[in-house]
Structure formats: structure tokens, C-alpha cells
């Protein structure tokens, strides 16, 4: 069969010794940082950007992807054992996972989480293998107006579906777009907002901005807020799975995988939202919802399958449309650009080794992770004990030296510090750095597409609405930017009155 050829070709890419080593390196690193509360996969990927210069592009992306989905496995461990979610996407796992651990069933919780994660990810990869080329083919017809709409929609969804206050996210995103305008105008070549500073002639570099905002900013933030949690791990040598457990959570794993796959594709959705929705679904479907929050195994299996499925499928918009679905994907987008590859519908034909290599590496990577997280889980539990006071200086040195090596530039180090301070202040004042980075990455593309569209339409803005695809996408923009917030606003007023009347409702998923 013809269409299996590219998939097999992808395995050929992954199964070279170098790529296998970097895949293993990536997933192991992902597990480690997933276990460590604090530094998340986004920060780690940002910090490792300079390394990607030294290795081939497909190898770099395979490693970075491994960090991302590996962290989903790792985050589970601390959620279950310590009720300390290593990642936002494993917060819901603490509800039932930690309760299971307290009643001596930690091994079962970790076991079902690992198996659920593996199944969720695998279902998602298989679906992606077939869906991604179709989406890419469909997107080949996209012109500047469609890309304008798509980029606007992507930024908007990341801002509104994220964890922060939507207006603040919008402001962060606009700041990112403005930062992207600094430097040479993409069409006319005029200097913009450079204030005659030589460093800014070509605009801000992606690497120091991301390393500053996500890496250094996070460390500075934690230095200030560090309240050392008492680390007392329950002793768990290994994870195991009983037939009984599996039978009980089969349905939850299947539903979680499907939920995760679809929510992962959605910009702004991603793993965190998927795990929340999966938990809610399991609780609602259950005949015995009162068990949830007290150690129901479905409450671990569903969300864990979902967050891994979502982590996988969030690569689809990046690899097929060139639109990153969340801030981690934005950094991987940037990493691809650094390698001279522009992700988009042409990626599959121009750089099949990247496209299929990355997708197929996930099959292998998840196998590695299953091995790492079932028999070797005891090893990772020990990592939790490394103190932040030791970890953060090491990370800082890696950031500072790493950014210097990119351009051998002293100014890049200053820019990292500057954006580190900005990232710290943004966090303190409730602004998410995620939308800023996503918008910064898409800024150049969006402006170019917007201005080309204006020329195509000869200045007629209605042109955006008259083309079917861009019209639909702009319809979605209006829906998310105007209609939904309005409904939410009106509903909040009503539910506030209602809540007072009928006291506590049952929908306390977040409790």
C-alpha cells in the first residue's frame, strides 16, 4: 500500500542510533522534569533551544517532543504520591490518585496511569498518522486571508481557553505581536521601533525571549515564592496493574483517549483541559459518583489517558497548518524556524523526515516511557528529593551560557535577563507569558499574511468574510471573542443569584 510507505520511511528515520538515543534522552528528561514540581516542559524545551543548533533538525524535534509527552508521564508520579502535581495537566490526577496512594494502592494508581497514558498516546498517534496528511492536503489551498484568520483564531483561543484572565491574556498576546514588529518591516524593509539600536535592526531574537520568559522568569518567580513543601514520599518500589483494575478502567481509558485527541487539536485546549474534561465525564457517567475524590481508579485512568492523547494530537495543527496550538508548540515552532524549516502544509512533502520522523518517534518514545514508568518508577521518585536551591543555580547557568553560545553575544544575555524580569512581573500581576510567546512567534506570519490579503482585496476588508474558509474562521473568531464571553458574562450574573438560592451545587470538579 502506497500510503504506508511514508510511515515506514518515518520509522527508518527514528530507528537510526542517533535518533533513538535522542528520543530516549528526551523522554527521560521529560519524565525527570515532570516529576520535579516547578520547571515544566515548556521551560525545559526553551532552555534546551541552543542545543538544537548542534544537531540535525529531525533529531532536535524528536528530542523536544519527547520532553513534552514524557513530562505528562512524569507529572503523574508526584500527583499520586505527594498530591503535588508536577504539571498542570496532572492536577486532576491528585483527586483520586493521591487518595489511592493513601489507602496503600499507590502502585495500582501509578500502574493504571502508565498503561492509560500509553494507550491514550498510542490511539492518538494512530489517529494522527491518518488525519495529519489529510489536514495538510486540505490546507494546501490556504492563501494569505486564510492564514490571517487561522493565526488570529489560534492566538485568540490560546488567550481565552488558557488558565489566565482572558483580557490579560489578550494584552500579553498583543504585546507579543508588537514585539514581533520590532526590526525590519517584512515587506517594505523600513526600520521599526529600533530606536537606532544596532542590536534591534533584525528584531528580537526568539531564543533569548523564550529562555527569559519561560526559563529565567520561572526561576525568579519561584525564588520569591518558594515555600518548601515537606517531601515525604510513600515508599513505592514499583507500579503494577491487576486484571481487575484494568477491567474497571477500560472504558475510562477509551473515553479519555478520544476526548484527549479532539481537545488536543483545539488551539489552547491541550493536555490540561483534556484531563479536566475527562475527569468530569467519568464522574458524570459513573453509577457511583460518590467514589470520586476518594480513590476511584477511573478518576486516574480517564484523565491520564486524556492528557497524553492531547499532548500527542496537539502536534497536528503545528505540523500540518504551521499554527502552534499552545505555548510549548510555539517553542517547537520556533525551533523548527531556527533550523530553517517553516512548518505548514508543505512540511510533509518538503521535510518528510521531520514530519514522519517526529510522528513515528512517538510510538517508540511511548514504549520507552512505559518501561520507564512501570518497572523503573522507584528511580524517579527519588528525584523529587532534589532541592530547588540546588536545581535553580544549575538551570540558571545552563540558561546564561546556552544563550551566549547561540550568537556569541553579550547582548543576548542582557536580553534574557530583561525578559526574565518581564516574565516574573507578568506572573506576579496575573499575565500569562504563553500567549505572548505564541503571538511573537506568529507575529511575522500574521502581519505578512494580513498585508498581502489587503493588497489582494484591494483594501476591501469584507474580502476576509467573503472567502468561504477565512469567512468561517473569522466567524469562529467572532464567536470566541464576542459571543461566548458575553454569554459567560450574562450567565455568571444569573448563576451568582442562583448559587445564593440553592447553596452548593454538585459540579465541584475543582474541589
Amino acid at each position, binding site marked *: 500500500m502506497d500510503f504506508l510507505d511514508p510511515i515506514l520511511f518515518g520509522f527508518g528515520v527514528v530507528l537510526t542510533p542517533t535518533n533513538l538515543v535522542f528520543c530516549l534522552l528526551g523522554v527521560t528528561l521529560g519524565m525527570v522534569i515532570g516529576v520535579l514540581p516547578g520547571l515544566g516542559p515548556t521551560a525545559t524545551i526553551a532552555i534546551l533551544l541552543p542545543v538544537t543548533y548542534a544537531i540535525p533538525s529531525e533529531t532536535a524535534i524528536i528530542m523536544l517532543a519527547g520532553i513534552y509527552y514524557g513530562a505528562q508521564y512524569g507529572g503523574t508520579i508526584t500527583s499520586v504520591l505527594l498530591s503535588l502535581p508536577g504539571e498542570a495537566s496532572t492536577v486532576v490526577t491528585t483527586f483520586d490518585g493521591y487518595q489511592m496512594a493513601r489507602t496503600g494502592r499507590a502502585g495500582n494508581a501509578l500502574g493504571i496511569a502508565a498503561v492509560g497514558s500509553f494507550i491514550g498516546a498510542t490511539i492518538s498517534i494512530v489517529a494522527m498518522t491518518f488525519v495529519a496528511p489529510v489536514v495538510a492536503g486540505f490546507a494546501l489551498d490556504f492563501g494569505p486571508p486564510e492564514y490571517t484568520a487561522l493565526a488570529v483564531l489560534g492566538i485568540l483561543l490560546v488567550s481565552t481557553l488558557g488558565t*489566565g*484572565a482572558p*483580557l*490579560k491574556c*489578550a*494584552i500579553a498576546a*498583543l*504585546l507579543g*505581536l*508588537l514585539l514581533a*514588529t520590532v526590526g525590519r*518591516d517584512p*515587506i*517594505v524593509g*523600513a526600520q*521599526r*521601533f529600533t530606536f537606532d539600536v544596532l542590536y534591534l535592526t533584525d528584531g528580537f531574537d526568539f531564543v533569548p525571549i523564550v529562555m527569559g520568559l519561560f526559563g*529565567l522568569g520561572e*526561576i*525568579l*518567580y519561584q*525564588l*520569591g*515564592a*518558594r*515555600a*518548601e513543601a515537606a517531601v515525604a514520599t510513600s515508599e513505592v518500589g514499583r507500579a503494577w496493574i491487576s486484571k481487575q483494575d484494568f477491567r474497571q478502567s477500560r472504558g475510562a481509558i477509551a473515553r479519555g483517549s478520544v476526548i484527549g485527541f479532539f481537545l488536543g487539536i483545539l488551539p489552547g485546549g491541550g493536555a490540561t483541559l483534556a484531563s479536566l474534561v475527562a475527569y468530569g465525564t467519568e464522574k458524570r457517567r459513573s453509577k457511583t459518583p460518590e467514589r470520586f475524590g476518594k480513590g476511584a481508579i477511573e478518576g486516574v485512568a480517564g484523565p491520564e489517558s486524556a492528557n497524553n492523547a492531547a499532548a500527542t494530537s496537539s502536534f497536528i495543527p503545528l505540523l500540518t497548518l504551521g499554527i502552534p496550538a499552545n505555548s510549548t508548540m510555539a517553542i517547537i515552532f520556533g525551533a523548527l524556524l531556527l533550523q530553517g524549516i517553516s512548518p505548514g502544509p508543505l512540511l510533509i512533502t518538503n521535510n518528510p523526515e521531520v514530519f514522519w520522523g517526529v510522528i513515528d518517534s512517538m510510538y517508540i518514545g511511548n514504549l520507552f516511557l512505559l518501561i520507564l514508568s512501570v518497572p523503573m518508577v522507584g528511580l524517579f521518585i527519588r528525584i523529587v528529593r532534589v*532541592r*530547588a*536551591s*540546588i536545581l*535553580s*543555580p*544549575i538551570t*540558571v*547557568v545552563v540558561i*546564561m*551560557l546556552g544563550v*551566549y*553560545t547561540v550568537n556569541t553575544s*553579550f547582548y543576548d*544575555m*542582557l536580553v534574557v*535577563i530583561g525578559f*526574565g*524580569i518581564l516574565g516574573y*512581573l507578568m*506572573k*506576579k*500581576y*496575573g*499575565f500569562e507569558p504563553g500567549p505572548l510567546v505564541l503571538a511573537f512567534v506568529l507575529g511575522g506570519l500574521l*502581519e505578512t499574511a*494580513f*498585508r498581502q490579503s*489587503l*493588497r489582494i482585496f*484591494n*483594501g476591501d*476588508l469584507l474580502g476576509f468574510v467573503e472567502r468561504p474558509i477565512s469567512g468561517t474562521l473569522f466567524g469562529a473568531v467572532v464567536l470566541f471573542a464576542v459571543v461566548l464571553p458575553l454569554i459567560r458574562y450574562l450567565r455568571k450574573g444569573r448563576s451568582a443569584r442562583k448559587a445564593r438560592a440553592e447553596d452548593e451545587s454538585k459540579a465541584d470538579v475543582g474541589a
Partner: protein
Amino acid sequence: MSSVPESAAARGGASPAPAPRQGAEHTASEYEDEDLGGPLSPLPDEEPALPRWVGIVTAAVPLALGIAGAFGAVDLGVGSISNPGPGLWPLVLSAAMVVASVALLALGHGLHGAERFGRGWRITAVATLSLIVFTYLFEPLGFEITTLLLMAFWLKIIGKETWRMTLTIAVGTTVVVYLVFIMGLSVNLPRLLFF
């Protein structure tokens, strides 16, 4: 050890450091109890609400940025809508920024997600300052000494680690950096030892 000059510089400069708007959250007396807060001192549990003006400032900063951006954009030349100049796109963005900031102000959402600074900001300020000093010494002194000093400062002064731990980790990291960056990846780092 050798972290003394750096730490002295950092402490001396701690007050004018970029740490923002500290006056709002604490009375001066709270700062006098001990030196840096230390990583082991958790933030107070019950935190009083942030004053309202913090929310107003939070919205005013992006508002000012939007207005400044709009003026800058007009200066660049907006062109026409069928033939956009370099300033058109920045103008659109600046206008959106102004609208979003005004909405933030009007809805009074400026404090959403904001946190008090607590006393943690001082550690952050000192840490930031140490990085700036590091950056300026990096090229003249080479990476070996500066990395060692930075590590020692963060481990001992900021992290309150023991001397033994400080020395082990600081020296260990510097050696690993040397092996990975110089020997492994043969990257250009300014250095003292050329061999």
C-alpha cells in the same frame, strides 16, 4: 570564598534594583527583621487583598504602551488600506492594546490573577542583580571564574546551602560545562584556560 565581592555588590545595590512597587504591600518595619528572607521562609499564609490602585496601574501600563505604540506607528507612515505602509499593522495592534487595557480598567479586572509581592521580591532582586554582574564580568574574566562565582552565590547566599554542598555543586557544574560546551560541542565561550 570568592563569592564575597559579588555578594557585596549585590547587597549594596539591592534597594534600587528592578523590584517594583514594593512600597504598596508592606510597611517598612517588616523588612527589618532579617536579611534576605531566605528560601526556607514561606510566604505568610493569609494574604490581605491587593490595594485597588495596583489593579489600575496594571491596566495603565499596557494602556500607555498602546498609546505610545500608536504614535510611533503613525510616525512610521500608515499608508492606505489597499497599500499598507510599515505603520499600519503596529497601529492596528496598538489600537487593540488600548481597547483591551481600557476594558480591563472599566471592568476592574486589573487584579485578576495578581499576587502580592511578599518579601520574596528581595531575593528575586538580588538574584537578578547577580546575573547582571555575571553578564558584565563574563567576557572580561572568562566563563570559569564567573560561573563558579555565580553558582557559589546562588547556592550559598540565596539557597543557604552548606559550604560543602556549595563547593561540590559549583565546581562540579563548572567542570561539566567545560566538558560539554568546550570539549563536547566545541562552542565558543570566553575562557581563561586555552588547552
